[in-house]
């Protein structure tokens, strides 16, 4: 029991949850709205490092630092979105990817601020409950992750979600109905990216020391592979995908089943090799993902159920 509470296990579960939250946000950006952003790791890294730096350099309490980091991330995302979102999909992909790479590069090179590869920190948890501290923080992360998934679920059942879906399906048609699609894409992108920054910020005490390797394009690809594997158009797609990738490899294989260290390199390479293979197979043979597509049409016999729920 002690092992579970204080050790590596809770740490990995916390990271897993954060990734689930990120993958769910990616679902909202890509699976609902159709924005192909490969910058999610850069934005998460920006939130992470801003929070850590604000806490340490400006001696700010945790909650305030999180808020500031979230707002800053929102502002940066607004800028990126403003520039990129009215370009075609390929340009958005490349542009956001480039941004992500640049963020990582700058964090490494501006080591006077970020301490580069030496890692920045330490940042402790904002409260102290003894051996229950990590668990308590884990529960907080769980709360926020569930909140994000709940929001995503509500989106599917709200006018705003319908608008986003219409933008994804046929943006010119949505515009011909008077919908200000660029503005809406920008607002949603900014909002969801700010959320990404938020999760980056609250990840800081979990990591204790933040390193550039936590925020590289690798993370972006892992999230994308997970979402595509799980189901890009489903709220739980991120959850399923992350459990099947990060959960499988980083938790079960590395924590519960100990792998002798000489195989560590091979495990790393095999992991990404398999990720690539899975990605190719999913896109070729099951593009909707494990959970499949979302079907919005309702059978006649379900209508009364629907009316009872809403009425």
């Amino acid at each position, binding site marked *: 029991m002690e092992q579970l509470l204080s050790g590596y296990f809770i740490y990995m579960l916390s990271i897993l949850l954060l990734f689930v939250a990120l993958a769910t946000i990616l679902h909202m950006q890509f699976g609902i709205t159709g924005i192909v952003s490969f910058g999610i790791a850069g934005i998460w890294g920006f939130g992470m490092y801003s929070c850590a730096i604000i806490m340490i350099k400006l001696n700010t309490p945790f909650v305030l630092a999180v808020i500031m980091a979230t707002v800053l991330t929102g502002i940066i995302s607004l800028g990126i979105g403003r520039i990129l979102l009215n370009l075609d999909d390929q340009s958005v992909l490349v542009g956001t990817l480039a941004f992500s790479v640049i963020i990582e590069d700058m964090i490494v090179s501006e080591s006077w601020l970020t301490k580069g590869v030496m890692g920045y920190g330490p940042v402790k948890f904002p409260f102290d409950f003894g051996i229950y501290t990590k668990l308590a923080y884990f529960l907080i992360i769980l709360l926020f992750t569930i909140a994000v998934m709940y929001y995503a679920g*509500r989106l599917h059942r709200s*006018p705003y979600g319908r608008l986003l*879906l*219409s933008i994804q399906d*046929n943006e010119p048609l949505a*515009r011909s*109905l008077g919908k200000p699609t660029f503005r809406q894409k920008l607002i949603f992108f900014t909002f969801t990216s700010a959320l990404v920054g938020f999760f980056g910020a609250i990840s800081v005490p979990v990591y204790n020391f933040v390193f550039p390797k936590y925020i590289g394009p690798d993370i972006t690809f892992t999230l994308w592979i997970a979402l595509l594997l799980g189901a890009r158009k489903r709220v739980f797609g991120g959850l399923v995908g992350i459990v099947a990738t990060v959960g499988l490899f980083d938790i079960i294989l590395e924590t519960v089943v100990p792998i002798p260290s000489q195989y560590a390199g091979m495990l790393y390479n095999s992991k990404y090799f398999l990720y690539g293979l899975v990605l190719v197979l999913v896109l070729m043979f099951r593009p909707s993902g494990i959970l499949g597509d979302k079907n919005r049409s*309702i059978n006649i016999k379900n*209508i009364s159920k629907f009316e009872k729920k*809403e009425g």
Partner: protein
Amino acid sequence: MQDKKLHLKNIIKRFGGRKVVDIKDLTLGTHGIEGLIGPNGAGKTTLINLISHKLKMDTGQILYYAKGNEIDISKKSFDQIARLGMVRTNQIIQDFQSLTIRDSLLLSLATAKYERFYAIFSEKRLRKSAEEEIQKYLDYFHFENPDGHALSAGEKKLLDIIRCLMLKPKFLLMDEPTSGLPQDQTDMVIALMRRKTVEEGMSILIVEHNLDLIWGACENVYFMAEGEILIQGPPDEVRKNKTVVKKYMGEGDA
């Protein structure tokens, strides 16, 4: 008679050096339903695209009249124009593949206040306020499964038209709206159009090759050829006009 809706001045559009549209001075929307006819290649669809800003004109100015204001829409974006009350249906069938029929209608009716990223509990309210109107359309056109997707081309065409009507436009452009629809549905669409022009003061411009429809439904007809509006007037006059007969009636579905 209605208040004029659009004033086109000196609209020129060239494709590779050739003038496809050349309109010196044209006022649209003074009648309830107006028709635009002409042989293939006359520039009808191009003109519609220029008006709704799907295409940029080389020179010219389009003035739009709403609520007593004169607005230059040459610089306005595609979606802004729709919000100002000028809407168009599509010649090539367009739809939202993941939305059901009811979804489409709710999308049309949803105003800005429902479409905010934090308004995630407003679905019930929207459905309630939209219920009556949506049901009227569903009943009128006999949609079998409104909570399913629009499957046939005819259903999608109808849906396109209804989406536009739900926006309560002041000026509606329809590019071959009834092609592909069975006759009874065509009649229903036209009857609905007539009612709307009377009830809501809407003006409609229909581009069509089906001349029976034009003569039957329109109060005013424009004849376009080689990029210019050559003749305009009530259907009876236009249909007897020598130029129209020569250039077009041989080809059309008269």
